[in-house]
């Protein structure tokens, strides 16, 4: 038992080693099939997963809530309270215009929020202050700006930018991506040319709006879910309902706020009108006042003139008075002068008398003096005598005192002596002697004194004689003095008289002088008055002039007032009307509504989702076919292996091995190859293919910064299981078939299948012309039907895959050129500035008329409309050309299939093909054309025309007028021109852009480029398909050929022995292969056409119709490629053919 197992394992290992080629070919075909299957099918998930990862990293909002009236903090806190909301962030946004050299860029400003819609910084830094901004990386890529540049924004509307933004100039601090923008489109705006060129991110502080323009909401636990998936969608649907539920209350609140604000504003406006009215009235009052004052002024001037006249009279009178006064004064002066003459002579007389008197006086005075001298001498003598007397007396007194003292001492001594009983003593005696001496001295002195006194006071004494002389002179003197006093009194009287006269004279002179001074003053006064009069005259003239001016001014003012008041009244009326309108508007203003926008309203989110679904759709078809072909080859190889080994199977059976043990060998062989192959395939495929596809799409989705290719267990397991199942079942089936036979049967060579005549032989003419190898080929093909069909399917499948790949490229590349060369045969579109004055437009037209190289132009009215038919709606661009007489120069209307040209119908509209299909409209149907929610008209569809890009509806201006009642206002121009080179075209477009009436120009060549660029990614994916299909074709052909050769070794050996050259032997095989390849190519071409149709409709974008045709060259390419692979494989096979050993293979049938 152990031995048996051992030998079987040994046999198994040898089998693999011996037939390494077969093993490897099964391994690779399975690997290829599994890789492609799992890879392409993973791509959809991986694309979505990559985007989801990025969205989660950048914390893309789940909802964006906007309101028709903005959102408040209260709204924000309400939203935060909604169950399931994990975060809500209020933000501002603002569309601005930014002039960049000759291009006007429209930017959308976003708020830099924390925790939501976080920008990914590509270069530079986040804005640090509210004067910095971070711009779209796209703007840097396009070369508009670089970091550090300053950008200046303007509002692009009549509203000042400062109402919404703190500053208008910002420094670019960096460039970034934002998760809302995966691709290069930035959406449409309401300013500029209507398309937004990029965004910029500002700090919230840079905005000054007093309400949020939007609130970003993030939903709890939503980030964990795949955002394109059903679970996420369900969650979002629930949240949408919840958010909508709170919107009504919030909107009402906001409405009330708005209303009170608006009412306040309205009353302000009313106040303003009232003020204006008052001002007008004031102006009128001022004017009237002015008129009155002017009249007064006139009166005043008249009065003043009169006064002036009076003054002049007074001056004349004054002058006369002054002359009289002067005469009187002169007379007075003369009298005074005479008076002075008398006075002088009198005075001289008096002076003579005075001098005499003065001599007398002087005599008297000297007499007097002498007397006084004598008297003084007498006096002095008297006095001396007196003094001598007094001094003597004093001496006497002092001696008397001494005597008294001696008396006292004597007494005292007496008493003492008495007390002593003595009567005398020496001392006493001395003392009484002393007293006696003294008493005698005193008495002498007193007698001397008396003598002296007598001498002096005796009448005949000297003294008395002197006194008498003196008294005589005095009386004489006193007589002179009386005469003198009389003289003096007389003189004094004369003097008094003279002084009185003098005083009188001086008084008169004073009077005269005063009169003179008075006169001078009067004269001065007069002169002043004269000057005043002159001045007054000048003033009056000035005043008159002023008055004239004032009156002219007043007149002008009145005129102005009349004019202005008319205007002002009109303005007031207008303002009032406006107020009324606004009142009506406020009354009409509906309660605002919220728009709860989920991610499906993000354009790039949706288009990316659609693109990945498109890859998913490709994944539904392509890999399955691919896989089936691969499985078929693996199956053939295994079947063949079992068949080849029937002898050894028989032997083993005969030896008594169980069927299971034998089958296990082949099954294990197949499994080993399949499982390892599919695991390798899956490992490579699920990483590389999604990587290639995602990186291809990143050309378009430049905003997606990462590419994730996780292992998708479901797709991987599916691929592995499908591989295992298909080869496993095939192997088991083949083994069972072989094992059901008896050992003896198996050991005998299998009865070769009999040759059979084929139907073709009936066509003898054809048959006869075939040589035998050719005949053999034909019969061979028919003989091995299984192999025939497998080969056909295999090669056909590869051919079909390649054809679809090329065909999709055809369908894609044809779009732009078909649309912008074959259908739109004009060369450029000019968008007219609808605000431009008519003369500017005609200026543009004449500019175009005269521009060299310009062939012709057509004015067109273009507008976006929604079409409705049954329950279907489709938005289209309505285009009304000015005239349809030469429309065929600009627009080709034709049937896509028959390529028959149509005339422009006048009775109805022309609809483009895909729009018609979306609306389920056919020619003759009525459609509803809606401009907005309210206005709609009905029209008949008269024609459906070929179209590839966007959807259009064409109609004649006459029909437009019939439908809408007015003629279309042309807002576009189609240009047709011819320039030898691109430079001239650019120069022309620049020149047109400079025209005032031109709002923009778009060249068809540029549009072709744009679209081609957009579809580039899909194109790259096609290359992946083509290369994979080519690889598959190669492997399939190699396997089938290899089987073919092994199967017919004997035949080939026989041919060799018969002397067929190598190339003849080869040809025998190749012919068959080539025939099979050719049939496969033919079958594949048919399969490819159908597959292409299917794929194109699943891959197609909504706004475009891809080409439906595969170009013949693509048939050629895919056919040639398949054929080339076939040739290469055949070439590789020739080596194996050479190696066929004639001898070995001829000996017996193995």
């Amino acid at each position, binding site marked *: 038992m152990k031995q048996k197992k051992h030998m079987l394992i040994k046999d198994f290992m040898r089998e693999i080693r011996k037939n390494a080629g077969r093993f490897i070919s099964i391994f690779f075909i399975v690997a290829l099939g599994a890789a492609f299957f799992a890879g392409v099918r993973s791509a959809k998930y991986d694309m979505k997963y990559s985007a989801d990862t990025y969205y989660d990293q950048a914390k893309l909002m789940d909802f964006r809530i906007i309101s028709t009236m903005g959102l408040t903090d209260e709204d924000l806190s309400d939203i935060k309270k909604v169950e399931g909301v994990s975060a809500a962030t209020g933000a501002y946004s603002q569309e601005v215009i930014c002039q960049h050299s000759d291009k006007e860029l429209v930017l959308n400003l976003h708020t830099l929020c924390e925790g939501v819609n976080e920008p990914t910084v590509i270069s530079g830094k986040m804005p640090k202050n509210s004067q910095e901004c971070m711009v779209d990386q796209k703007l840097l890529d396009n070369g508009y700006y670089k970091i550090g540049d300053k950008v200046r924004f303007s509002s692009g509307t009549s509203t000042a930018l400062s109402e919404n933004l703190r500053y208008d100039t910002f420094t670019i601090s960096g460039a970034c991506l934002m998760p809302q923008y995966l691709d290069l489109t930035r959406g449409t705006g309401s300013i500029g040319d209507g398309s937004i060129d990029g965004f910029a991110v500002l700090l919230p502080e840079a905005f000054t709006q007093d309400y949020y323009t939007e609130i970003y909401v993030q939903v709890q636990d939503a980030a964990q879910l795949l955002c394109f998936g059903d679970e996420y969608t369900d969650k979002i649907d629930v949240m949408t309902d919840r958010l909508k539920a709170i919107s009504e209350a919030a909107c009402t609140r906001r409405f009330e706020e708005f209303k009170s604000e608006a009412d306040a504003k309205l009353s302000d406006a009313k106040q303003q009108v009232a003020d204006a009215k008052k001002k007008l009235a004031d102006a009128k009052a001022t004017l009237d006042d002015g008129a009155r004052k002017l009249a007064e002024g006139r009166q005043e001037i008249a009065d003043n003139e009169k006064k002036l006249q009076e003054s002049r009279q007074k001056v004349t009178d004054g002058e006369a008075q002054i002359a009289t006064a002067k005469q009187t004064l002169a007379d007075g002066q003369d009298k005074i002068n005479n008076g002075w003459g008398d006075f002088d002579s009198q005075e001289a007389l008096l002076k003579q008398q005075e001098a005499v008197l003065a001599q007398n006086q002087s005599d008297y005075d000297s007499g007097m003096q002498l007397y006084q001298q004598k008297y003084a001498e007498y006096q002095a003598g008297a006095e001396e005598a007196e003094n001598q007397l007094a001094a003597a007396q004093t001496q006497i007194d002092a001696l008397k005192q001494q005597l008294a003292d001696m008396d006292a001492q004597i007494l005292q001594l007496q008493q003492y002596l008495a007390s002593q009983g003595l009567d005398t003593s020496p001392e006493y005696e001395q003392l009484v002697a002393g007293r006696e001496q003294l008493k005698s001295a005193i008495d002498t002195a007193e007698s001397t004194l008396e003598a002296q006194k007598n001498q002096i006071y005796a009448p005949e004494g000297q003294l008395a004689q002197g006194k008498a002389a003196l008294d005589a002179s005095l009386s004489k003197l006193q007589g002179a003095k009386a005469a003198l006093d009389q003289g003096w009194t007389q003189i004094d009287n004369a003097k008094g008289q003279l002084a009185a006269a003098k005083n009188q004279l001086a008084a008169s002179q004073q009077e005269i002088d005063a009169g003179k001074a008075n006169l001078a003053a009067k004269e001065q006064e007069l002169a002043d008055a004269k000057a005043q009069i002159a001045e007054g005259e000048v003033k009056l003239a000035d005043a008159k002039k002023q008055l004239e001016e004032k009156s002219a001014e007043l007149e002008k003012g009145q005129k102005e007032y009349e004019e202005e008041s008319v205007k002002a009244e009109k303005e007031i009326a207008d303002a009032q009307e406006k107020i009324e309108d606004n009142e009506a508007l406020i009354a009409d203003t509906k309660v605002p509504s919220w728009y709860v926008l989920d991610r499906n309203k993000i354009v790039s989110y949706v288009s990316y989702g659609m693109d990945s679904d498109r890859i998913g759709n490709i994944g539904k078809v392509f890999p399955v076919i691919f896989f089936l072909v691969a499985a078929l080859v693996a199956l053939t190889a295994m079947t063949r292996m079992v068949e080849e080994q029937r002898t050894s199977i028989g032997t083993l059976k005969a030896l008594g091995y169980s069927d299971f043990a034998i089958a296990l060998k082949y099954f294990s062989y197949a499994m080993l190859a399949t499982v390892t192959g599919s695991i390798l395939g899956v490992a490579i495929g699920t990483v590389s293919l999604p990587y290639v596809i995602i990186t291809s799409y990143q050309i378009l989705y430049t905003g997606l910064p990462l590419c994730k290719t996780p292992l998708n267990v479901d797709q991987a397991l599916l691929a592995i299981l499908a591989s295992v199942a298909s080869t496993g079942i095939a192997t088991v089936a083949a083994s069972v078939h072989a094992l059901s036979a008896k050992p003896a049967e198996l050991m005998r060579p299998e009865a070769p299948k009999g040759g059979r005549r084929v139907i073709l032989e009936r066509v003898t003419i054809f048959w006869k012309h075939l040589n*035998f190898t050719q005949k053999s080929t034909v019969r061979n093909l028919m003989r091995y039907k299984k192999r025939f069909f497998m080969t056909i399917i295999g090669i056909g499948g590869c051919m079909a895959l390649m054809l679809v790949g090329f065909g999709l490229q055809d369908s894609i590349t044809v779009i732009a050129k078909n649309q912008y060369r074959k259908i739109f045969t004009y060369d450029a579109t000019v968008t007219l500035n609808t605000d431009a004055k008519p003369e500017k437009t005609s200026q543009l037209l004449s500019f175009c008329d005269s521009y060299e190289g310009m062939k012709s132009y057509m004015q067109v009215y273009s507008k976006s409309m929604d079409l409705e038919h049954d329950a279907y709606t489709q938005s289209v661009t309505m285009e009304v050309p000015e005239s349809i007489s030469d429309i065929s120069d600009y627009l080709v209307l034709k049937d896509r299939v028959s390529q028959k040209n149509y005339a422009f119908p006048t009775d109805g509209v022309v609809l483009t093909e895909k729009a018609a299909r979306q609306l389920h409209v056919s020619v003759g149907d009525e459609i509803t054309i809606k401009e907005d929610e309210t206005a709609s008209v009905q029209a008949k569809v008269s024609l459906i025309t070929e179209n590839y890009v966007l959807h259009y509806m064409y109609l004649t201006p006459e029909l437009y007028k019939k439908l809408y009642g007015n003629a279309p206002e042309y807002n576009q121009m189609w240009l047709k021109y011819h320039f030898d080179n691109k430079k001239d075209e650019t120069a022309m477009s620049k020149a047109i852009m400079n025209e005032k009436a031109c709002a923009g120009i778009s060249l068809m060549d540029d549009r072709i480029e744009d679209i081609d660029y957009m579809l580039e990614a899909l194109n790259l994916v096609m290359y992946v398909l083509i290369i994979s299909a080519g690889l598959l074709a190669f492997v399939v052909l190699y396997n089938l050929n290899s089987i073919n050769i092994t199967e017919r070794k004997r035949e080939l050996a026989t041919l060799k022995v*018969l*002397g067929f050259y190598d190339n003849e032997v080869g040809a025998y095989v190749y012919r068959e292969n080539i025939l099979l390849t050719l049939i496969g190519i033919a079958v594949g071409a048919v399969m490819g056409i159908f597959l292409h149709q299917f794929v194109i409709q699943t891959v197609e974008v909504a706004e475009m119709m891809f080409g439906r045709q595969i170009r013949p060259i693509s048939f050629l390419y895919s056919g040639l490629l398949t054929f080339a692979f076939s040739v290469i494989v055949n070439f590789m096979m020739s080596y194996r053919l050479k190696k066929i050993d004639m001898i070995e293979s001829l000996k017996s049938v193995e």
Partner: protein
Amino acid sequence: MGYVELSKITKIYHMGEVEISACDGIDFSVEKGEFVIIVGPSGAGKTTVLNILGGMDTATSGRVTVDGAAVDEYRGKKLIQYRREDIGFVFQFYNLMQNLTALENVELALQICREPLDAREVLTEVGLEERMANFPAQLSGGEQQRVAIARALAKNPKLLLCDEPTGALDYVTGKAILKLLQDTCRKRGMTVVVITHNTALTPMADRVIHIRNGRVSGMEMNDHPMPVEDIEW
């Protein structure tokens, strides 16, 4: 110098490390128009000799001349040309093209010859005029071998080499085939070499060559070869 001349033919097969000598110096010659039987036990090297003679294999050393041409010097295309123009081969298992009719199988050989015979004539000659339009699978073993012989003959070769032509046939059919070969030799003067392990057949040959252990162990000439009908085994 014979019509066919082999001298000192050796053939060594290398099977990995092992060297197996199939021929160890074979010498013989055959005259034109002779019916030759090479006989020997299994593994004696007779098939190797036939293969070398038929240009299907080359000798390790020694010389092979056929009609004066040094076949041992032929390589590649020259060798194929030799097989194509000078050799007719009849196999044990017929080796007919299964999806060509009897006639077409013969014509297949003819289309590569310079001076072929008429296919129908040859087929009539081998007694298959009724079965010309049949596919091999519709023919019996003997009939298939006849087609094979016809295919070989129609090329009008210099040598007709037959490797155990009766090996897969029953006694009667085998005899008929041998008769056909003998008759062909006699009527057309074709040089025929037949390999067999059956020594009983030797009397019908003009020349009998015995091979044993890679060497010619003996050669004898029958001056009066017996008709096949007279031979029993």
